């Protein structure tokens, strides 16, 4: 989800094919379905295809996927199977390893890369409100409005929580009767939040806002969306069947 303007403009300028919200969502789901259904025989070319498509659509996605934190996480997930999964039947440079575990590790690495790139690409191209707009169309009416309220409330509620915590700390913190302290902190935080909610609801109603009369949040459309959707469905059918 677009977090800042610089990232937004950077992504827009980097993008070769301008897709709408549905197009981005289809690409994400397409990658997910393909990697989930891939077997060891077709894993390499399926992952290669996904990475190629993702690199064309989101040229900057790999930069945020390949970072130290994620690589450490990937190492923690992918390295142990090489030595512990299945029988240790091969030796490479004097280090014994399991061929079954090695295959499993490659599968893990490729899936990880595809899933992370697809997720990064989608979240950097689609706004949170657009996601809410899609969900609204699936029956969650008013989600777009609620998301707007939530995003605007986030900094002020965060500040209010911090202030309540600091006040509690100044009055002795959780050293003595910690349970009472936590209870008081929760009560204060939620009461403040609800009071704020009442003000927002009143302001929205005074502007004649009604969830029944509002149109769902508009979602970005592109002529390429249907092309992407049809191609994705066709390729999934071809690969799975």
């Amino acid at each position, binding site marked *: 989800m677009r977090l800042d303007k610089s990232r937004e403009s950077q992504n827009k300028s980097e993008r070769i094919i301008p897709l709408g919200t549905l197009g981005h969502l289809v690409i994400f789901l397409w990658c997910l379905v393909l990697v989930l259904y891939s077997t060891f025989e077709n894993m390499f070319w399926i992952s290669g295809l996904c990475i190629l498509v993702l690199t064309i659509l989101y040229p900057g996605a790999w930069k945020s996927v390949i970072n130290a934190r994620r690589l450490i996480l990937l190492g923690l997930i992918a390295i142990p199977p090489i030595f512990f999964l299945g029988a240790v039947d091969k030796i490479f440079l004097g280090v014994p390893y399991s061929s079954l575990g090695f295959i499993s590790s490659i599968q893990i690495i490729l899936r990880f890369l595809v899933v992370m790139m697809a997720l990064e690409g989608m979240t950097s191209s689609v706004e949170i409100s657009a996601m809410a707009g899609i969900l609204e169309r699936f029956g969650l009416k008013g989600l777009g409005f609620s998301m707007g309220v*939530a995003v605007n409330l986030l900094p002020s509620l965060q500040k209010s929580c911090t202030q309540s915590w600091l006040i509690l700390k100044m009055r002795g913190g959780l050293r003595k009767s910690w349970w009472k302290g936590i209870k008081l902190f*929760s009560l204060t935080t939620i009461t403040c939040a609800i009071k704020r909610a*009442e003000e927002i609801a009143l302001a929205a109603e005074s502007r004649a806002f009604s*969830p029944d009369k509002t149109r769902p949040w508009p979602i970005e459309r592109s002529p390429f969306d249907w092309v992407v959707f049809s191609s994705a469905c066709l390729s999934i059918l071809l690969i799975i069947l």
Partner: protein
Amino acid sequence: MKLSTKNLVILAVFGTLWGISEITLGTALKTLNIPLSGVLLSAIGLMIALIGRIFIPKKGSTLFIGIIATLLKLFSLGGVVIGPMIGIISEAIVAEVVLSLTGKPRQGTMILAGSLGVLWVLVQPFVTNPLLFGRAVFVVWEKLILNGSQLLGLGNKAVFLILGIMICIHLAIGVIAGIVSWNLGHTLQKRVGMSSEE
């Protein structure tokens, strides 16, 4: 599910509170690598969602809160975090299904929703790891037993004992979350002078 403006705003507030707990506390706990941090986060999140259900006792309201929290989790430090996002939405679905069994929220269903929601933390790796990262179920199982044995100070051989104790810990924390949210929800209703029917 028909919601008024006030209902929508209140759900947004509870979703934001769950989102804040995941963004701030979640990042801190994961960085410090505290054991059972997922359980603690899930209990806090579910408590917020269950209190929200007391305020808006309509079918789908818990799921609504969960969706808002999931989308807000995208603001988390360190970029996209798919595991916690799946966790939040799954816990909300579990709680929603349990709470939808009875029309009006009751203490029993609240406790059940809390305990099953927290228990999901134990089950989630078995679903997400093989599906998303192709990790074998056996590896996930092995890691669970190893973590459990380290946490409880038991030998690796006592597999069923470790598993049983882990399930009991998760369920107990969930039960506490359910009881606390029931009591806190009603105290809050009295404090802000707002009934469930409002």
